[in-house]
């Protein structure tokens, strides 16, 4: 599925990127794994359509599944050791705590350019190839085509 005109325009302006527009109906979908997120904010900075934003809240469940050997993983492991019950949802984060914020992803604004995938250092954002048949109608679909090669 070809890119939207706007998506093609933006991709063309990113340095070192050659848009591969395929005509055989293969596209990509952005997939996020919040437990791998370290809160660095690079995806927010590079997204050209403001589809990704830093929220003012944090979901503690992200810590539990963070990989061992990382700061968040160690924090999650420590939290699990003293927790009395499962985390009961997200909460507001004080202003000066910048790297513990849940990232919000607005699919309807996503262009499928894949810049976030390239920027993410931990693989919390990846692109998943989908078949043309899965995509169906473009408008209102909850999967969006992406130009990152499969």
């Amino acid at each position, binding site marked *: 599925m070809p890119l939207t005109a706007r998506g093609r325009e933006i991709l063309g302006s990113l340095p070192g990127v050659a848009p591969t527009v395929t005509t055989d109906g293969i596209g990509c979908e952005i997939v996020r794994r919040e437990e791998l997120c*370290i*809160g*660095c*904010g*690079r995806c927010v900075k590079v997204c050209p359509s403001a589809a990704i934003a830093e929220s003012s809240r944090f979901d503690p469940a992200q810590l539990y599944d963070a990989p061992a050997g*990382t*700061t968040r993983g160690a924090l999650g492991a420590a939290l699990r050791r003293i927790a009395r019950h499962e985390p009961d949802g997200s909460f507001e984060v004080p202003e000066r705590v*910048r*790297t513990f914020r849940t990232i919000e992803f607005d699919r309807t604004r996503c262009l499928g350019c894949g810049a976030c995938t390239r920027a993410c*250092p931990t693989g919390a954002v990846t692109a998943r190839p989908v078949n043309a048949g899965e995509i169906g109608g473009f408008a209102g679909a909850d999967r969006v085509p992406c130009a990152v090669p499969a």
Partner: protein
Amino acid sequence: MCGTEGRRRIERAVQSRGLDHIVIGACSRRVQGPTFERIARELRLGENAVAFANLREGCSFVHRDEPAKAQKKAETILAASVARAAQQSDLKRSRTFLQRSAVVVGGGIGGMSAAEELADAGIEVHLVERQQSLGGYMARLSKTFPTEDCAMCSLAPRLANAATDSRIHVHTLSEVTAVSGPPGELRVRVLHRPSFVSERCVACGRCTSACPVELESDFDFGMAKRKAIGRPFANAVPAGFVIDFRGEAPCRSACPVHTAVQGVVALVAQGRTGDAYELASRENPFPSVCGRICPHDCETECTRGRVDEAVAIAGIGRFIADQVESAKPVAVPTAVYSVRAAVVGAGPAGLTAARELARFGYHVTVFEAQPEAGGALRFVIPEFRLPRELLAAEVARVLAHGVELKAGQRCGADFTVDSLLAAGFQAVLLAVGLQRAGSVPLAASGRPGLATAVELLRSQALGEPIPVGRHVVVVGGGDDAFDAARTCLRLGAESATVACPEDAAELRAEADLVAEALEEGVEVEGGLSAFEIVGAGAVSAVRFRKGPAGETVELPADCVVLATEREIDEEFLSGAPGVRVVAGQIVVDRATMMTERPGVFAAGDAAATGPATPIEAIAAGRRAARSIHNYLRGEDWAEVWEPARPTAEVADADLSTGKPEWRQPMPVAAGPGRRRSWAEVRLGFTADDAVAEARRCVACGGCSECRSCETVCPAHAIDFDQEPWEEELTVGAMVIATGHREFDARRKPPLGYGRYANVITQSQLARLVSASGPTGGELRRPSDGAVPKRIFMLQCVGSRDQTSRGNTHCSAICCLFATVHASLIKQEHPDCEVTIGYTDLRAPGKAHEEYYRLVSTRGVRYVRTRFGELIEEPDKSLRVRFEDTVTGTKAEELFDLVVLSVGLEGSDGTTQIARVAGLQQDAAGFLKEYHPKLRPVDSQRAGIFLAGTAQGPKNIPDTIAQAKAAAARVMSMLSSGFLMTPAEVAWSDPAVCIGCGVCENVCPQGAVHVVDDGIAHAVVESESCRGCGICVAECPSGAMTLGGFSDAEILAEVTARA
């Protein structure tokens, strides 16, 4: 453990067992940490090889009654330190080169002492002082305790030294605006303010005598006045004079012609009316306009208006204008260029331009259609507002500049623009004004009994006969309408009514004019529109529509005067191709005032501004002349729009709170009889009234830019073009010696300071008894100059104060300050009774107690006091009620003079440098030292040291001692030539760093930057890093770590302690 025996043990253990880490279980790391770290370094264990267990202050000292638990805790703490030690790894240190130079901020005795010491050690010193001279507080004292040495005598050699030592660079009128960089290479930005006097000044003092502006002398703590140019004391360093320019006075900023209004007023206040006339007419050839017909925006902006009432600048201006006959004759300029310029129209714009062009050196000819010059001033403004003779005298002065006047010549008829250019004029200025009445309905023109205001006023000015009838209605509401109405009365009409569209309460015309008109019997009918003349043949009435309902109103009249807006008469356009008129205005380029025809310019009512006041026409004429000058020279030699400096601002707190002084009212001729007289209605100030009024000026601009100094300076040293400039100095260290300020006794209203004339501070008394002071050392009380016979000194004002209106600390010097003054007074006036009302007599310094005892034997009365009340008597003496707390008796005594011993606080300069250099101040504004006992001269920032009263209240010898200690610290820091950066700095692993930039945002020192050398990653400037670790805690990837406080080390300690 920290002694030699302990050291030997450590050495033996390390060497015999090949150890690489040491754990010390002893006192707090903050106390002996450096000792053991040095041992480890000397044993070649490197950096970060020692872990500390605080078994003393943190354990045994605080758990003395729980020995068993304390023992267990001690074991845990030790275990934790061992765990930490296992994680500690070696850290690198690097060398930074040190600048062998220093900045000393503050040029008082402290700053100068530090500077001298540093210079003697071979360190280059920049001494930065915000005032115009070095000397600080000490220069203002009389004699100092306990030796009664004269302060200036002790200070003068230091001043001379600072002035002549080539290793000390003195920067006065300078302030530090930014400090950045690591110790050893501090980058200090210094702002230099202009003195407006160059180095050619020889301090002869002629400028000070010539300066008309009197300001309160800061140096004398407000006990005397000084001029706006000068120097505070004879030994000032640098010796040159300085102009205290605080910004343009608001009156000058408001004036369209930018007259140096404050200067004119100051000259009048000094009785120098001739000089005042010169100054008033410097920009404006028609000073008669000021005070008579100008709307005086200067008065609206006058700072005095915030105190009681604005200075009557218009009245003063009028007084000066009347002196035209006795003004100095015009200095005729020599024509420098053989270039001729033509001005069409001899009105305010045209004549002003002509004078300016003549001063530039051109041959100027002015063409005027009417038989006389003057324009609107002569032919629109009636003579009871602006006397003809006065205007004629001013016109004559303009022509005396060598300007040729050709009257009776109409542009477009007798000559044209083309013909002027053909005749050899290289520039033509069209200042033709607005000569026609506007929007006269066709049905009305030419009818008998009907006139326009323009024609009426012009005819009267030309002396032509005018039939006005008996009942006149003037249609229109501007100034012209009222001028026309009053003129008609004087021409014999019985009644005159102004019928205008505006509401009677919201007239466009100037309020003063309307008031005068009403006094003369002019009637006003407002809210009228859509007039219609009634009567076939002769006029019988005028019909109007009134109000929203449109009811008809008829005013009987046999003469109707139409006072509509004046319009341009396009007659001049014929023979002027290329010049266009659009919407009633000549089209000109806004910047150059040139029309679309090269060499042809336009100014005044007819061009760009639209109908405006005469003063604005004058301003336009000046601008046009400068633009023409640029055009004729082919280059921009003059700024068309005169550059203005920022306007002076006076804080409300600095405005006097004394009794209000109302302005002189302008005397006016009595009402009813006026209506037949052509004499001026406003009578003007007498010389005495003008001087008294001028004295009300608060001199908010400081220097008024009158340029009297420039005129008299024999060395041509005055330079008004100086600008502030900044430079960046790179130095190794800084010493802050910014001094103190006094507690403001107005914060204690019951003491009457600022309200009662004879309540002063010790500093003010110091000036009174000082031989170089305002009274030459004669003790005189402020209210009447009498020698006081009974003096009361109140101690601890604003100090040792538990309320929120004072400071809690003791200011250390005030008891002795009062004592030395009491001693000096008793020596000069043995029969003067001096009472010192103290709380506790504090005399801790060397020889202070002995001095106090000596003085108390000389008849000075010391009373341990609780203060009650202070009341001013009618003769300005003071009745003081107090309690003698030793005997427990209450007393009420009368004194001639009360002296308050106010405490010390951090100065404004201290607050500023604290903000700039990131230093902390305590509640009273003094700078915080790194450790009050163990490091009293170090600030909290490495490389910056403190000295003098900026750090806390102290006397002169202590200031000097501390200053030299600060200098010693600088010397020891800079002596090795290089500095080892601390080991405990942050470091980012480029292999892990993702370049997100969070560290750069949070670093308080600005020591982290994300760089992109192929990969974006963070780099820490280790010389600037202070090892706080905030970046490490924020780092989301774990790339950042802090030497000595890595996560591994901290977690090891935490885990084992939990």
